[in-house]
Structures are given as C-alpha cells and as structure tokens.
C-alpha cells in the first residue's frame, strides 16, 4: 500500500522482506513457508506494537493522511438519494464545505461537512478543506433549512482551520463562525457532530455545536494546530510533536475531559485502510444517537445541547466550592 507514514517504515521493510522471500521461493522452487510464516507472525506483532501504542503526533499524521476518508466518502457510504446543495445566497459557493440532503437508513437528514481533496489538484480546488465565510454561511443556511423541515443534521468535521486570508477577513470570518455557534445552539432538530480527521480550532467548531459530539479514533481536536502551538511556545514549529503531546488533543483525551460523547473505532493503521469498515462503524453510532435524539421534543433538544456545552470548563471558586 502506498502513502505509508514515517513511523510505519519498519512495517514497510518487513512486508517487503516477506514479499521478496515469497518471490524467491517461487522462483527457485524452494520451500520457505516456515520462514515466511515466522516473519508474518513478526509482522503481526510489530503492527500490534506500533498501532496499539500510537502517540498523539502519530495520530495527527493519520488524521492528515491524504487517503483519509472525506465527508463525501462517508456520504456516499451512509446516505441514499443524496442531493448536494450549493451556495450561501450571499456571495458564493465554498467548495471547502459540502452539504445536502439524503436518506440515512430511510430517514431524510441534512449533512454538512468540511471537504478536503485526495490529491494536490483536488486539494487546491477544495482549498485544503479551509472554509471562507461563505462556507460557514452555506452550512448555516442548510442547517436552518433542516430546522424548517424537521430534518436531523449530521456534521462531519475535518479541517485544518478556517482559511486565514485577506478576503476571508473582509467578508467576516469571525462573524460567520460566531453566528454558526449561536444559531446551531438554537436549532430545534437533532444535531450529531463527528470529528473525522482534523478538528482545527474555531473553523472546526463552527460545524460542531451538537447534541452529540463524537470523534474517530485517530482524529484530533485542538484550539490551535500543533505547529502553531509549537511556534508560540518554543518559537519552533518543528516542535509540533511535543506540542501535540502537551495540548491533549486526541479522541481519548477529549473523552477523558468530558468534551466528547464517544470514540468511533478505526481499522488498524487508520480509517484510510478500510473506508467501508469505518463508515459502517460511523453509521452504527449515528443510528443509535439519532434513535435517542429523535424522541426528544424541539425544546428538549435545545436544552440538551445547551447543557452539553454549559458544563464545559475547569475552574475553582475561592469561596470554597470547587466547580466544574
């Protein structure tokens, strides 16, 4: 398989060795099956060792893998009759965010999500999944449309962040994100958010105010990119690895802090190794959450969402009561 990450090199070497041995045994008609079996066993052990103990930085690399399934990959596998809808009705159609309507297990839902590309050309067209204000405004328009028709909303989050550009600032990047936060809090339909890859700060959060928030096993969610944190902390972006560890950005960290509701498993080595399998797990989690949330009234949904964010924060009161 192509696209191996640096920390996967030992596995690549071992796989090549096995392949070579196999070719050699066939060519020379020698029985090396014992030797091959031994190496394959070793490969399995090594995989366990590497993938079972991924560091935060390795997870960041997996989350950013070019083959990482995108919002459209998940839509294709989870929704029937999907119709993509375009534009914010004000300025334009941001290709860094996709959205539309489809049927999830028979239920009409609205989906919005960041959209990255798979190669350089596609990524340039998608602006690497970094939205402009019109992207957030398109997402809000579609979510308010869902509210009107009583459709649940699915949000797939995978962005390095909101685009830091001149036009984005001129058109009100801050306002677009802020408005989404406020308006998502007020929607009367179930909202299920999933961080599928990179959860890049405010640009991710702008699609992230939901009744449920889940993360794929190797995704991350952070107030600042590891590179950005490293530049600020140690004046050195190459310290990103250290920053990734300091910042507590993995799905496991966020679950521990009570920020997310659950972790969606990925196949060994990451979601890109088996997109269908990942989409199935994702679908199961969404189905369960939808089933629970669709029993709630609009008012209960708003209340439920309010409480979810209201309790987040860690601090102390000097009048003696510790609070959280």
């Amino acid at each position, binding site marked *: 398989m192509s696209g191996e990450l640096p920390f996967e090199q030992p596995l690549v070497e071992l796989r090549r060795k096995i392949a070579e041995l196999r070719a050699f045994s066939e060519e020379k008609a020698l029985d090396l099956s014992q030797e091959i079996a031994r190496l394959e066993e070793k490969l399995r052990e090594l995989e366990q060792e590497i993938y079972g103990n991924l560091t935060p930085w390795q997870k960041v690399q997996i989350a950013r893998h070019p083959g990482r399934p995108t919002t459209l990959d998940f839509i294709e596998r989870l929704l029937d009759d999907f119709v993509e809808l375009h534009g914010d009705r004000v300025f334009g159609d941001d290709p860094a965010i996709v959205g539309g309507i489809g049927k999830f297990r028979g239920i009409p839902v609205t989906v919005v999500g960041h959209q990255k590309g798979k190669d350089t050309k596609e990524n340039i067209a998608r602006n690497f999944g970094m939205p402009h204000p019109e992207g957030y405004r398109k997402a809000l328009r579609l979510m308010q449309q869902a509210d009107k028709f009583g459709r649940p909303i699915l949000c797939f989050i995978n962005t390095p962040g909101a685009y830091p550009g001149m036009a984005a600032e001129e058109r009100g990047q801050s306002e677009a*994100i*802020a408005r989404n936060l406020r308006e998502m809090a007020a929607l009367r339909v179930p909202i299920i958010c999933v961080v599928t890859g990179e959860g890049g700060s*405010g640009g991710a959060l*702008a699609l992230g105010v939901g009744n449920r928030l889940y993360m794929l096993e190797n995704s991350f*969610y952070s*107030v600042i990119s590891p590179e950005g944190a490293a530049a600020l902390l140690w004046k050195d972006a190459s310290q990103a690895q250290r920053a990734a560890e300091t910042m507590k950005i993995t799905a496991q960290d966020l679950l521990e802090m009570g920020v997310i509701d659950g972790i969606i498993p990925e196949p060994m080595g990451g979601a890109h190794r088996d997109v269908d399998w990942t989409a199935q797990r994702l679908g199961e989690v969404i189905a369960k959450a939808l089933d629970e949330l669709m029993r709630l009234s609009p008012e209960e949904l708003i209340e439920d969402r309010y409480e979810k964010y209201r309790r987040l*924060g*860690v601090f102390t*009161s000097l009048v003696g009561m510790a609070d959280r």
Partner: protein
Amino acid sequence: MFKDWFGKRKRYATLPGVQPVRREDAADAAAREERREIPEGLLIKCDRCGTITYVKELDKNLKVCRGCDYHFALSAPERIRITLDEGSFVEYDADLVSEDPLGFPGYPDKLAKSQAQSGLREAVVTGEGTIDGFAVVIGVMDSRFIMGSMGSVVGEKITRAIERATEKRLPLLLFSASGGARMQEGVLSLMQMAKTSAALARFHREGLLFISVLTNPTTGGVSASFASLGDINIAEPGALIGFAGRRIIEQTIRQKLPDDFQTAEFLLKHGQLDLVVHRKEMRATLAKLLDLHQVRRVGS
C-alpha cells in the same frame, strides 16, 4: 534622548520597583542622571506618534493621545470607571480562578504573574451597574491578563453574566480585548466559544439588547464568538479586530497586507461593524442606544 529614556514600553502607572531589564549604554547612563529630576511615571510617550504627555493629562483625556487620537489600552477597572455611573458597579463572580487542566508548562506561573501585575484574578471583570441611569449587565476584558485570552474562567464569567442578564431582563454590554482562546487550557478554551454563544442564543430569543464593544485587540476565538454577536457591534478607533493574525495571513497568501488591514475603520468599510465610536463619545453613545431601546431607567 527622550526615546531612550522611556524605553519602548507604554507605562502610565507608577510601578515601584519594576524596571525594564536591558543593557545600559552611555546614553542610558546620562538619561539616568537626568531622570532623577523627573519623578518616575510622570510622562508617557505615545506608541504611535511619539507625542509625550503627562500621565495625568492622558488620564484626563481618557487615555487618548492628544497628538494622534491613539486609544491607549484601558484596564478593566479603568473602563468600568469611565463607562458606568459612579458607584453603581456591583461585581459578579470575583471568586472564580483558573486551574491548570492540561498541566501546561508554565501556566500556573503565568497566571500568578498576571494576577500580580494586573491586580485581577482573571482576564474579565463582570457585574452590573448603570449608564446614565440605565441598568446594564457589563463584562470588560483586560488585555494585560495573558493577552485577555479566554479560558474556562473567562468563558464561565461571561456565560454567567449573559444568564443573569437574561433572568433579570437587562441589556448586556461586553467590552472585548482579547487575543482569542487561551492555548494553555486547550480544547476547553475552544469550548468556551460555544458556551458563551449558546448563552447568547437564549438571550437573543428573549428579545433583549446586546451591545458588543470591540476594543484593541479583539481577535481569534473571542472575535469568532460573543464579540461578533451584538445586536449592535461598536469598535474603538484604530482597534485591531480580526479572526486570523496578520502574520499568518501574510505567510499564507504570500503578499503584504494593506496598513489599515483589520482595523476598526477597515471593518466598518467592509460592513462588519455598525459604528466606530471615539472613546470620548462612547458613554453618551451607549446611553443613547439604551434609550432608543426603551430600556427602563433605574428608579423610574
């Protein structure tokens, strides 16, 4: 000569015993001789135009430079003093202090240092008071405290202030001055954006008035949450307001940005603000807006 004397830092209050540490050269030594005749902290140089004024004069002018109209930063207590009716302020939640949820290197020290330097426990002061008799709930950020960044305590205090304003049906006034979400509390800081904005959703639904005043600087996670959500968004002249930092944008787009980029005036021109209001006019403008929204005056 004067330039050497006052250093590069803006200083407008006498801080006994606090001296900028730097190497001394001959000019400095001469200046030191001279300085003896002038009491410490009596004069201040404008960062923008270099005009030198008496600190007292500058204070009298609401910390606005007479030379170029540069609006110096105000501390939260100073802002409250010049905005609210005298003696009307009652503080909320002064007891809340930050923890170190991530075990972040250097964070407890940073908090302690900010507390010592500012005399505040956190980067926002909230409470209620009156402006020309109109009762308001007010929150004022203080950029001296870890760049006015928003962590759990700032988010919590602002959320509680919004909730109280909702309960009491009072207008809400928030003065922002912040570099954004506080990195040292990680994703919990990010979540304060959602928390404060969700509280504003409720406030908004109740038909109540929120005036957001963006002061220098209001960027990142604060500009991308409550600060941009006013029914009326006002900025002070020259205030830096934006989502991404100038340097990041320049690196990303590989071109130089115009000088006025992300200033209050730039935002006004691009339709992102309702008003740019001079500090001297701020209190009267706020009172007028409160009156226009038929806010009840206390005692009437």
